[in-house]
Each structure stands twice: as structure tokens, then as C-alpha cells.
């Protein structure tokens, strides 16, 4: 009826629907364009190292010599790649048991106390700016390691410790959601068969939620991998593979933040930094891919 007459007023709900549709598609287009242009920009700048400056892939990924000002300049990024992986994996190894146990405690063992006090406290950790973590790490963790272990205190373990606290909220909140979503029938069945709480948790609850728990750990690792400022403050930033966990080394992010502002756009060194940024971005995609794969397994 309303559609037939051209002069008839368009009904308000149609207007609303179209406004909504246009607004939503505009937002989506903007988002997609932003993401794609960022990817494009980083990729073009990052690849110009190989195309324009003629540096081989083998040098970037295979060499440990980082001498951007040397004669001839050398751009071996292996120490940074190893540094990034070792700090983020170590951080996940520290944070995963803590986060998963905290989630178990909050969901299974003391739901009331956990939900009321523990969860807000852990979520609060997510809101602390990374420069604060870095400063706390530099003022407390580094002197602590310096006093009890041989070495400078700065290094992979200091970085991993700071990062593990930073990624704790990610791992905990995802683990909490996964555990709460578990159908109560599973646990009740286990108890009904005479299993103790420990047996129920370790043989029923943890195995069934494992893919979701791992999702949290991988997301935490992704965050650790991309964190720059806090790590830069406590890792020491020497462009070498360290001989111990307490010797100064660098990560991809720390070398980018240290040098990006001091190098001139278009120079070889600047392009190599963009290549490192490209490696970081590709790694993030790998993490996202792993998360998707784990989520797919969790749904089965």
C-alpha cells in the first residue's frame, strides 16, 4: 500500500532501517579501508628494503649482525626476532598457569569471592598504561634480578616478567568465560560417578575447555609480542643474542621504537625498520589464525 503511491510519505520505520543500514555500511567500509591501507602501507614500505635497497631476505632473517651505521651497513634482524619470540613465549609460560588457575578458582572453587573481588582486581591490571608497567619493572624487577642473579638484571626474563603481568588479564578473562560456559551437566555427571573435585577439574573441566583456554594464551602471546614501551624499558636493547636470560637484548618492537624517530624516511635503515614492522604484523596475523583455528576446535 505504501509502496504503490510515489507521493505517499515513506514510512518512518523504513527511514530508520535505511539510516541504520547506511550508517553501518559506512562504518564497515571505513574500517576495511583503514585496515587495508595500513597493511598496504606497511607492506610497501617494508618490502622496499628488498626491492629498492637490494638487501637479501637471507641477511634480514639469517644474520645476527645489526650494524646500521657500519661500513658496509649490516641489517641482521635475527636477534630481534629471537628476542621477541623468547620474551613472549616465556611470558605466556609464566602467565598461563597463573591465569588459568585464577579462572578455575573464580569459577569452580570460590565463585562468590572470586567474582566479587578477584575478577575486578585482575581486570584492573588491563587498564594500567604500559609505561607504568615499564617503570615498575625498571624500578623493582630489574634491581631484584640484578641482586639475586649474575648479570645486569635487564634482559629477557625481566621483559617476560613484566609482560606476564600485562597479559594475565587477557588469559584470565577468556579462561573465566570458557569455564563459565561449560554445561553444568558435565561436572555433575563427573561428581555423580564419585570423582573428587580435583579429578573432575583435571580430567573433565580442563580437557573440555582446553581449546578456549589456549585461545586466551595465544591472544596473550599476541599482545606480548606487540608490546613495545614496557619491554623497551627493561630489556636493555643491545642488538645481540644474549648469552643468558639476564643480558641485554632487543625485540622487534623495542628496536623500532628506539630508532624510528631518529632515522630519516626513505633511508635504508628506516626501510629495514618498516620490514621489522611488517614481520610483526605478519606474526600478528599468524596469531589471529591460530586463535581462529582453536575457536573452530572449541565449537566442535
Amino acid at each position, binding site marked *: 500500500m505504501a509502496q504503490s503511491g510515489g507521493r505517499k510519505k515513506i514510512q518512518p520505520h523504513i527511514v530508520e532501517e535505511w539510516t541504520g543500514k547506511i550508517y553501518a555500511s559506512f562504518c564497515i567500509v571505513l574500517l576495511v579501508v583503514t585496515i*587495508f591501507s595500513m*597493511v*598496504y*602501507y606497511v*607492506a*610497501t*614500505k617494508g*618490502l*622496499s628494503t628488498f*626491492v*629498492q635497497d637490494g638487501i637479501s631476505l637471507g641477511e634480514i632473517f639469517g644474520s645476527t649482525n*645489526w*650494524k*646500521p*651505521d*657500519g661500513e658496509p651497513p649490516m641489517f641482521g634482524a635475527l636477534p630481534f626476532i629471537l628476542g621477541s619470540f623468547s620474551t613472549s613465549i616465556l611470558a605466556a609460560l609464566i602467565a598461563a598457569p597463573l591465569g588459568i588457575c585464577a579462572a578455575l578458582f573464580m569459577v569452580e572453587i570460590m565463585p562468590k569471592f572470586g567474582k566479587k573481588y578477584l575478577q575486578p582486581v585482575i581486570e584492573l591490571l588491563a587498564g594500567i598504561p604500559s609505561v607504568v608497567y615499564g617503570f615498575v619493572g*625498571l*624500578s623493582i624487577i630489574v*634491581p631484584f634480578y*640484578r641482586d639475586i642473579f649474575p648479570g*645486569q*638484571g*635487564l634482559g629477557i626474563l625481566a621483559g617476560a616478567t613484566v609482560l606476564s603481568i600485562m597479559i594475565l588479564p587477557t588469559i584470565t578473562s577468556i579462561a573465566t568465560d570458557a569455564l563459565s560456559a561449560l554445561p553444568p551437566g558435565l561436572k555433575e555427571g563427573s561428581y555423580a560417578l564419585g570423582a573428587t573435585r580435583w579429578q573432575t577439574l583435571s580430567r573433565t573441566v580442563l580437557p573440555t575447555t582446553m581449546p578456549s583456554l589456549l585461545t586466551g594464551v595465544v591472544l596473550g602471546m599476541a599482545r606480548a609480542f606487540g608490546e613495545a614501551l614496557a619491554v*623497551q*624499558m627493561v630489556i*636493555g*636493547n*643491545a*642488538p*645481540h643474542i*644474549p*648469552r643468558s636470560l639476564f*643480558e*641485554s637484548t*632487543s625485540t622487534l618492537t623495542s628496536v623500532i*621504537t*628506539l*630508532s*624510528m*624517530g*631518529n*632515522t*630519516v*624516511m*626513505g633511508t635504508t*635503515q*628506516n626501510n629495514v625498520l618498516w620490514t621489522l614492522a611488517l614481520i610483526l604484523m605478519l606474526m600478528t*596475523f599468524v596469531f*589471529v*589464525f591460530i586463535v*581462529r*583455528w582453536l*575457536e*573452530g576446535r572449541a*565449537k566442535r
Partner: protein
Amino acid sequence: MKKSMLLVLTLMLSFALAACGQNNAAPNTAGTNGSTTDEASASNGGNAATSELSGSILAVGSSALQPLVDQASKKFMDQNPNVSIQVQGGGSGTGLTQVSGGQADIGNSDVFAEEKLDAAQASELVDHQVAVVAMAAVVNPDITVDNLTKDQLVQIFTGKITNWKDLGGPDQAIQIVNRPSSSGTRATFEKYALGTKTEDLQGSIQEDSSGTVKKLVSETPGAIGYLALSYLDDTVKAVKYEGVDATEENVANGTYPVWAYEHMYTKGEPNEVVKAFLDYMVSPDVQGDNGDVVELGYIPTSKMQVVRDVDGNITKK
């Protein structure tokens, strides 16, 4: 699951496209910081026939010079309410790139433009030296060594001497706290104190901010680093260089060589508003005994009895 695969594939494809597009992408030395271009172009408008200054200025670059420009710009804006000045950090390299590319009106730098940019780009820039920053080698307070020669410093920073006992100090391993190899502060220290470029040694620490360097030197046993004079206090110990104390006086009369100009570069001759601001930067208001330069721990250029050119040749004024 399928959708996620699609997403990842799309991203992969976009990479492939990006790789193809590479060949025709311009070298792009200008840099493409979108946000800054607007302000820069806005500054070209304004100030017509009226004697009242109006317009906006964007100054980008060296974080060592930033506090001075920032403070001076606030006072300048109080005097000229129609002028707005934005001061951003980002490092000397960023400052020089952006002023050379035209995104910024003023590029702040710790080093001469010739040392960072190629000759053609550098020749377009006009240098305005607004202050002098001197640096001193600092050591952990527990180290008893008071004086280091140039040769000793070179041996420390190249890793040939690794223990303080070889220099007459306590039996304590030397811990180098350096700046990143691209930093202007490090370039100054290497050029005028060491006289040579050094490599980052295994186990050395690189930190970007003076505050962190000071903290690490004061806490780490056997640490050595270098700081601008304005950062010196009791928590670290400044050592003499070739027997000369790192004081403002010794810098001004030319006996202490580890110092550098702070530059504010413009592309070509500055326009009226920028020129007025740069004139203000070297006016007695800023450079005088009670001015911002002294207050913030820099040394006024007017006090310098020697002049140094880009090649390091020193002449008496």
C-alpha cells in the same frame, strides 16, 4: 571456520597486491604523516596587511630540544594571541624529514642537517642555532675514577677495557649504558668525545631517554654512560674529560669539547610568523640570564666564545 579462512586469505591476497604495487610506488622520502600536513599548510595563510601576527607554526623533532621550544612557544603565544604553535617530539630524524618534506614549519635537530639528510635536501634548509647542549661522561657513584682521557673512553666504548681496575678504579666490570645508534645525543658524544663511531657491544644497554640512562647509571654497579649537563645531580658522578671539568664555563671558552648546537631548521627563508618566533628564540627574553635557555639547563649561544662548523672546525668568535 570457513569465514575465518576467507579473512586470512583476503589478508594474504592484499599482501600479494601490495607486493605488486611496489614497483610503481614512489620512493616517498617526503613521509606521509597525514595529520601534520593540515597544520603546515594552514600556516601559510594568515597575516595579511595587519601588523598583528597571526598564523600557526608546527615545530617537530628532537626530544632534547623539545622542552625549550615548548616553553618558549607558550610565552610567545601569550604575547601574540593570534599565533598558535605546536611543538612535537619524534626525534631529530623525524624533524629533519618533515621540515624537508614541507609537513612541518620548523625541524628541531641535535645534529647538523648535513649529517642526516643528503646534500641536496640539506642545502634547502636554513639553520637557526638556538642553544648549546654539553654532555659529560657519567659513572656509577661507587667508581673512584675521576678523569678519563679520550683514549680511555674509546677503549671502554669499544670493549677493549672491561674492568675499572685497569683504569685505577675498583675491581668491577664495566657496564656500558649507551644510546641507540641512531640517536643525536650518541652521535654528538661519539663525534666530539670519542672521535670515532662505535658498535653496540654484546651486553651493552641502549636507552633512549636521559631519565632512564641516569637511573640505570646510578643503580647499576660499574655503569658508565653520558648525559646532558642539565641532567647531572648527586645520583651519578660526572668524570672529567682529558682533565677538564664539564662545566658551562669550560664549554663556553672552548676547553671542553663535548657539546653540540641545538638547531631549528626551516625550509628556505622562514615566513613572517615563523621568523618572528625564531627571532624570539634568540632574543634576550629566552637567551638571557633569567631566560628559558638557562632555566632549562641549556647554554645560550650568545655566551659561546667559540664557533663550530659542520665539519667540527672550531674558531674563536
